[in-house]
């Protein structure tokens, strides 16, 4: 049979993965299996096992590239998004598979959520929380959400709203900076 993903090469690998109780199965060619990170399947046995350096860029493109034509249009729109702090665009991220700074997680939140969901099987952190962050966490959370609103306002050319948001951001930044110095 042909590979279920590219539908070009013969399917030589059967992939079954269980993440958080959800099992997915697929007949894939070696290339597509490699792209999906199912490398371990390829190890037939002994001797000269090589562990290919699976490029995350490829993995993400394959995860992000699938879907209906509507999603493609959305992806084109998303690819022009740019993080104001580090300058990374969403297109850069898709290419390299690396984010540029903490704020990128805010700017690209809508795009990252489904990706993280697929990579990690969910998007809820249940591990350690930094102790020191507790007090400032809320402020920073607010700041991030304001920055995201600003990004949207600028994109929609709502300049009055943008100016108001900028003032709020400045005030919060000062509060955070001052707290840091005295803390």
């Amino acid at each position, binding site marked *: 049979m042909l590979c279920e993903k590219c539908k070009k090469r013969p399917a030589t690998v059967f992939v079954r993965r269980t993440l958080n109780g959800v099992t997915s199965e697929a007949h894939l060619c070696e290339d597509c299996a490699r792209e999906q990170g199912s490398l371990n399947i390829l190890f037939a*046995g002994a001797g000269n096992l090589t*562990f*290919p350096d699976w490029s995350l860029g490829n993995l993400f493109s394959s995860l992000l590239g699938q879907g209906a034509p509507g999603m493609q249009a959305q992806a084109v729109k998303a690819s022009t998004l740019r993080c104001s702090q580090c300058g990374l665009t969403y297109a850069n991220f898709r290419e390299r598979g*690396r*984010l*540029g*700074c*903490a704020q990128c997680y805010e700017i690209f939140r809508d795009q990252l959520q489904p990706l993280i969901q697929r990579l990690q099987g969910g*998007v809820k952190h249940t*591990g350690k929380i930094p102790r020191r962050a507790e007090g400032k966490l809320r402020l920073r959370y607010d700041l991030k959400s304001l920055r995201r609103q600003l990004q949207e306002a600028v994109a929609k050319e709502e300049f009055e709203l943008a100016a108001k948001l900028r003032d709020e951001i400045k005030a919060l930044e000062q509060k955070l900076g001052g707290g840091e110095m005295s803390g």
Partner: protein
Amino acid sequence: MDKEKFFTQVDAAWLEQGPEADTVISSRIRLARNLDALPFPPAAGKEALHEVLSQVEAAAKHLPEAKRFHILELSRLSPLERQVLIEKHLVSPEHVREAEGRGVILRDDQAVSIMINEEDHLRIQILLPGLSLLAAWQLANRLDDSLEQHLDYAFDKGVGFLTSCPTNVGTGLRASIMLHLPALVLLNQAGQVFTTLAQLGAVVRGLYGEGTQALGNYFQISNQLTLNHAEEDLITTLLGLVNQVIQQERAARERLYHELGNRLVDMVWRAYGTLTHARILSGDEAMKLLSDVRLGVNLNLLPQVKLTDLNRLLVLTRSGYIQRVAGKELPAAERDERRAAIVREELTGKVR
């Protein structure tokens, strides 16, 4: 303390004999952390990288037993010295690819190495001998708490610790166990075992991480997911899987011994004979033969060899180490001669 010892002495904590030493070489915990206000290393310029270095260096002064920690700037190390750090598993190959603005903080026993500006601003790594994953986590957690009091971590309530790559986001935790699985490989069962591990959410890699070969039948098994589970749960799940692999390897060794009998004994003694008499040894050949000898030791066929000597040889026989001790780069042929001499000395030169 003299930093020279990091490059010329083979005394890292993970080379000692730990729990389940017949199958487990070492346990590693790695926590990925980033500073909130600065670009992640792959996107950072020279200035930002140096800012991270100095912030982390200042925070490290408050670590418990701070005097035991030493910072090395990679740009001040020779290429050979960087290679030795990889061979000792104190930094990753990716970390030394660019030296500018990169550093590592090492504890004197080399059980702790904090990589600065690898893919993330901080990679807190604990490396202990044998199956000691929980102890490694407890130490990593303590050091992380200490650093966090002086550094502003990038953290989000929803997705946890923010990392350069979304495959590390959340806990930022990668727990790995280095196993020696010669019998599963000889019986052609390793592929089957790895397939099962992949289905259960574990990742298998070679000796030095991604993109490296499964030299000497050493395999690193680590957790794939880093989000939606607490650190202890990720570790416990991995330990459950690794314990099964250990049982399978032990069963495979029994089976090999009963099925092959004297042929297996012969293989082990031939490897020992070559290692103790050869005048020229390539790095790969040494790894292969040392794997056979280790199997022999664990089947009580070679009582004169100690596991800790074999562990030391994992570092002693590597090209970077040989050349750094020689004080210069050497052509391959000369390295192979020196390697043979080192192995002979280590295996036979001591009175037992």
